[in-house]
């Protein structure tokens, strides 16, 4: 009796499993962008079926139960919300969960009254496409991106879209810096033979995925930096032939870029922290940056195998005064016009961190609802304390089933903020439309330590740099860089590339100046609005900056995502990248109605001049008698008849 029931259950379950597999295969073929979302929808009911089936099992049917648990082991691990109390610990899972997804939000009040919110979503993809095996099954990792990465043999991909400029002196350091506009840098695998061809196709494909004009990236704005932009993931590929870097300072960011970016997340914008990302509030801010970072990392502390990590980050700074209301008070609802109601069911961890370092006893601002969880992290060279809200725990949401954090300021004065150690500025000097000078200022605000920085400058070919006028001065004296890599530009082919390693003395300003001459473009090369000006991309300053507190080099501990982006090799310093402002220069612009004017004038002159000359040279004059009177004509007729000369 019991055995008979067991057989029926097993048969039903096997049929369900098979139909599910076939249905999933169909969905994947037709709908590649929505794949991640369909996965999210399909897994939840499957786990529920599994739970209900499991609860009807009795002790006698251990054989069937074991088999069924082996079938379901993958699904149960991903749907973390379903408590798996029934699973016996001594049954090893057949296929361990390969993909993992974590989400977090960090909220940091800034000294100027603004508030900085940083979302990070990390998807780990355990796959082996390097060895040529084609990947056809995608779970949490977005299929559209996975196919692009395996087709072009990409090792690392970093792309960011930013609107606004990060004000380091008022806001401190960002967790993940990015320049205004769009920036893309890619490390290809060393198996790629034609890197330029792959780069061109990759930029076109990415422009389709992100609805951005990345197809404007070509050889005139792509460079191969030799020392900056070393790989951020694993691997010892350091041949710069496989690196490409391009920046489009003119690129705008709007909802059409946010929409496909959100669709790459496993839960989309339907559950978890991504529901907060509403474009009307996100773009009404002082700074908005969304980025995507793909790189190989160690799977665990033993580092026996590599997994591929995809980090999607969104940094936004909300302005106190444009959000209305004079008093200083911030809440999730005021920032995003939404509250969080649940964590993403596919996430293994979902947390919100609020920076309370300046508020140890609650005297500066009041944070509600209160949370008992506190965490300390060493990030950007400083030890910060965070209040943590764990969204996977239902108790966080309380009675209202939604989380809306409120920060209300009590004291008016907030004290001094920690001065950022490294800061950069850039501007164009000079007058007129022929020549000019680029000045880059690098500030070292450390009171007694000097450290070297790597400066990368990419200047378009139409600003002809005179490198013999390059001067680097600190504190009034010449400062000779220890490493210079300069690649001159070729008209219409490639831009200038200048990389320098400069030692910054403590508590000083280092100024780098270069003179340039503006070129006159061909009239078809001007944009439709040339009087706006032409953009020059930001300079990149990369440095290992001395840290105030000991950095955590131990990568085995579970640390929050925002503190583990840049790899940390030594305790006394941390890696930092600073972007300067982009430049806007006016090129000598012709009057575009001149071709029409010139044609009219030339044709008129030619017609009048040539016509007159031709007439003068070739016209002959013939004298013509006026016709004689009637009498004379008659007389002439008679004379002709007689053969006598006419009158």
């Amino acid at each position, binding site marked *: 009796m019991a055995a008979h029931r067991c057989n029926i259950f097993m048969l039903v379950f096997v049929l369900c499993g098979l139909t599910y597999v076939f249905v999933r295969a169909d969905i994947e073929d037709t709908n590649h962008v929505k794949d991640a979302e369909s996965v999210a929808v399909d897994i939840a009911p499957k786990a529920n079926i599994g739970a209900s089936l499991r609860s009807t099992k009795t002790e006698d049917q251990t054989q069937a139960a074991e088999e069924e648990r082996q079938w379901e082991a993958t699904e149960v691990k991903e749907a973390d919300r379903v408590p798996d109390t029934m699973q016996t610990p001594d049954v090893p899972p057949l296929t361990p969960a390969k993909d993992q997804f974590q989400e977090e939000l960090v909220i940091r009040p800034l000294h100027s009254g603004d508030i900085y919110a940083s979302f990070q979503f990390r998807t780990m993809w355990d796959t082996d496409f390097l060895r040529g095996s084609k990947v056809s099954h995608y779970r949490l990792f977005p299929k559209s991106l996975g196919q692009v990465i395996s087709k072009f043999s990409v090792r690392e991909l970093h792309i960011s879209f930013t609107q606004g400029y990060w004000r380091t002196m008022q806001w401190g350091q960002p967790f993940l810096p990015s320049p205004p506009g769009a920036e893309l840098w890619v490390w290809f695998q060393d198996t790629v033979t034609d890197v330029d061809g792959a780069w061109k196709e990759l930029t076109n494909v990415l*422009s389709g995925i992100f609805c951005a004009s990345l197809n404007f990236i070509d050889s005139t704005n792509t460079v191969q930096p030799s020392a900056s932009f070393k790989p951020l993931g694993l691997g010892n590929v350091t041949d710069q032939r496989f690196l490409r870097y391009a920046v489009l300072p003119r690129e705008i960011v709007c909802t059409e870029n946010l929409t496909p970016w959100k669709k790459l997340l496993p839960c989309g914008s339907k559950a978890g922290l991504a529901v907060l990302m509403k474009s009307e509030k996100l773009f009404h801010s002082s700074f908005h940056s969304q980025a995507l970072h793909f790189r190989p990392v160690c799977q665990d502390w033993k580092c026996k195998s590599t997994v591929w990590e995809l980090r999607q980050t969104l940094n936004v700074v909300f302005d106190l005064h444009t959000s209305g209301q004079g008093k200083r008070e911030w809440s999730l609802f005021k920032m995003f016009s939404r509250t969080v109601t649940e964590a993403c069911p596919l996430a293994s961890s979902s947390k919100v961190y609020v920076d309370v370092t300046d508020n140890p006893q609650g005297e500066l601002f009041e944070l509600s609802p209160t949370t008992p969880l506190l965490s300390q992290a060493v990030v950007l060279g400083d030890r910060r304390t965070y209040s943590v809200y764990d969204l996977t725990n239902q108790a966080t949401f309380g009675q209202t089933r939604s989380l809306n954090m409120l920060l209300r300021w009590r004291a008016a004065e907030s004290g001094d903020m920690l001065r950022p150690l490294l800061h950069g500025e850039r501007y164009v000097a000079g007058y007129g439309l022929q020549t000019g000078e680029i000045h880059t200022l690098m500030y070292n605000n450390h009171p007694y330590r000097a450290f070297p920085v790597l400066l990368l400058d990419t200047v378009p070919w139409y600003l002809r740099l005179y490198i013999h006028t390059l001067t680097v001065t600190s504190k009034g004296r010449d400062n000779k860089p220890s490493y210079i890599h300069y690649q001159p530009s070729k008209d219409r082919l490639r831009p200038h590339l200048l990389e320098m390693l400069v030692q910054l003395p403590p508590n000083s300003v280092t100024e780098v100046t270069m003179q340039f001459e503006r070129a006159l473009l061909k009239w078809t090369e001007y944009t439709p609005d040339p009087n706006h000006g032409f953009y020059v991309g930001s300079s990149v300053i990369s440095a290992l900056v001395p840290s105030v507190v000991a950095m955590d080099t131990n990568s085995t501990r579970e640390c929050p995502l925002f503190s583990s982006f840049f790899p940390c090799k030594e305790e006394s310093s941390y890696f930092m990248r600073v972007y300067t402002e982009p430049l806007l220069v006016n090129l000598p612009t012709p009057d*575009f109605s001149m071709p029409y004017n010139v044609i009219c004038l030339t044709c008129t002159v030619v017609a009048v001049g040539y016509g007159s000359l031709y007439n003068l040279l070739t016209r002959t004059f013939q004298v013509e008698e006026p016709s004689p009177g009637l009498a004379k004509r008659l007389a002439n007729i008679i004379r002709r008849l007689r053969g006598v000369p006419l009158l």
Partner: protein
Amino acid sequence: MQAKAGQFFSSGHTNNWAVLVCTSRFWFNYRHVANTLSVYRSVKRLGIPDSHIVLMLADDMACNHRNPKPATVFSHKNMELNVYGDDVEVDYRGYEVTVENFLRVLTGRLPPSTPRSKRLLSDDHSNILIYLTGTSRWNGFLKFQDSEEISNVELADAFEQMWTKRRYNELLFIIDTCQGASMYERFYSPNLMALASSQVGEDSLSHQPDLAIGVHLMDRYTFYLLEFLEDIHPASTANMNDLFKVCPKSQCVSTPGHRTDLFLRDPGNVLITDFFGSVRKVEITMETINLTAPMVFSIEIIIKNYCNQ
């Protein structure tokens, strides 16, 4: 049963595409972007998916720094209707909207690395809606980004290329610009229907300014077209004759024109949703196809398609 099925599939199209182009740049041409986005919104609402829409916007108004409400584009004053929305995919934007790219999209002659979302992958059973809006100061051309123009002859030739390459089944062309009727004067390919917002010699006017935003929000013809389309739902039976009546001279100040002489069917039998919506249809075949022999399979398909024309 067979006859009924035959009646149901009488229009002959199996998929719908839309190419929506805004050709003008600068903040004071906000209304052209709002025009295009309101047609985009209607077309999406009636069922055409983003993968079948090629949207070209020559300038960014939503995230423009002059916009007092970022990430929004309004069509009605007092900010009633946000036509930009939360889920929009712009395929060609900014400097990419050029005459060359527009003609390449229409004729399909794009470089091989162009992504799918930027291509018009229509076939001979596609109904295509093409909507153009912008400025044109004189007779016979439309300005792109204030620096180049497309003439009516070029457009007519592009449509002829599309016809010879079998890239459309039926095509509806709508243009909202000054002297719009001059743009469809030169068409000569079959199965084209055209609508314009004004006749030759007339200017198309804008509808209403919004004092907070500071510019005119929509053009009159597209404003009343949007109002008409808001009443259409995917199962609606409104036909083209209703569309021709949109925006009479009393509302539009200019006289909208239309051209149906190249169109084979009677406009009264053509549903609005044939062009603005996306009704998926299926082709029935009574033959069996042998899939095991690939060479023979392809020849059979070619003969079958040829005979069915």
